[in-house]
């Protein structure tokens, strides 16, 4: 239980997928212009990362590992995730129209994002069990949502500020991302300290 809490804390704050690992920069810059779209994207990411990690964990441990094909991990995961998201989209379109409409365009957009693949691979690399992998995935995705919402909030305010021309748009976004990453750097090592405290 305590271990799960530390994994979640670590995934959300210490190793935040956007700010510490710097994965998934495309949506971080592209969908952070308004809070509402950031929210939609964040929810879609939570949804996709969680189901993708659960599926790839099963694929890895029951197909790739027994067949000694772990070296195909990256390409197989990409294929599986893309297929899975497409499949889920079909399913939602027919059976959960409300969810389909609220996730809307964000679902296919996030499919082949490196954050999704990154979390799937990290869950394998960290030797998590199935349940722990799902926790880790959901927490990482929540960290994504958190960072994306912060960025969108900042950028909405930036809209009204006069910036020197070279800084406008992506440039200032990347600078802010850097400053936010520095702020989150303050969390570094906290997960290790916590787990050593728990184990003593």
């Amino acid at each position, binding site marked *: 239980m305590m271990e799960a809490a530390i994994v979640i804390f670590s995934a959300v704050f210490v190793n935040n997928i956007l700010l510490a690992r710097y994965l998934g920069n495309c949506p971080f810059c592209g969908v952070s212009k308004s809070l509402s779209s950031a929210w939609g994207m964040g929810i879609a990411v939570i949804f996709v990362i969680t189901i993708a990690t659960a599926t790839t964990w099963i694929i890895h441990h029951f197909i790739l590992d027994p*067949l000694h*094909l772990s070296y*195909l991990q990256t*390409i*197989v995961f990409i*294929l*599986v995730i893309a*297929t899975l998201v*497409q*499949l889920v989209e*079909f*399913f939602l*379109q*027919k*059976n959960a129209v409300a969810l389909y409409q609220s996730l809307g365009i964000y679902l296919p957009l996030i499919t082949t994002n490196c954050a999704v693949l990154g979390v799937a691979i990290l869950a394998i690399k960290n030797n998590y069990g199935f349940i722990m992998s799902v926790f880790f995935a959901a927490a990482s995705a929540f960290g994504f949502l958190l960072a994306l919402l912060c960025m969108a909030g900042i950028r909405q*305010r930036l*809209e*009204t*500020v*006069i910036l020197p021309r070279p800084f406008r748009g992506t440039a200032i976004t990347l600078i802010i991302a850097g400053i936010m990453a520095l702020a989150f750097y303050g969390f570094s090592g906290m997960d290790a300290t916590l787990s050593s405290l728990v184990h003593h």
Partner: protein
Amino acid sequence: MTPLVTTVLFMAALGSIAAIVLIAAARFFAVPADPRVEAVLAALPGVNCGACGYSGCAAAAAAVVRGESGPGVCLIGKAEVSAAIAKIMQQQETAAKRKIAYLCCSRNTADAKSRFSYNGPADCRAAMILYGGGKTCAGGCIGHGTCETACPVDAITMKNNLPVIDPARCTGCGLCVKICPKNIIALIEDTPAAVDKKRCAEYCMQDNLQFEVDQEKCIKCGICFKNCPVDAIVWEKGRPAFIEKEKCIGCYTCMRLCPPKVIG
């Protein structure tokens, strides 16, 4: 088997399985689409301006076919657009009522009192962050012309710190309505009666314009008197305040500021 052969075979097998699963899913989960949606979409201008209230032309087309909206859904499309949609839907044509943007504030910075002078970026959204703009009146136009910049058809010009909207140029796209941080621009029907009626208080307040000070509970502080943007309040030190109904524009300022909350 060499790793090369294994890899190729495995990926081919996996790819085929994925393809078969997706094809089966596409068949199984297929949602029958109404061909009229495509037809209506083709008839719409396709600029996705969002003036109709839907997220784009595709959403508007779907709404028409669902019966939520009529042939006159498109506000910027001319008569031929509604005629074409009516033909597809085999309905009587009902043209959209043309809507135009309308500013509900009628007091420029000289007319209405200011609480402070603002020296930040000349953008209403920035000024709004600082105590909601300089005017004492809660619904007062901040007057930095953010709507003027937002207008795609140059229908808005700033005159005496108030936007003036040219009804002939306005397409009713609603961009100024969305960008105005004070929410004092509204889309109204372009008829003389509607245009005459909706000004400041009449628009903002809707029906409740009768402000009164409770003479017994008034603590005689004079805050309402000092902040009234149109000097509609009579007050002397040691006496309860009184609102002159003819002058009151119903801006809520006194009600908002009254310490014992006895204005209503």
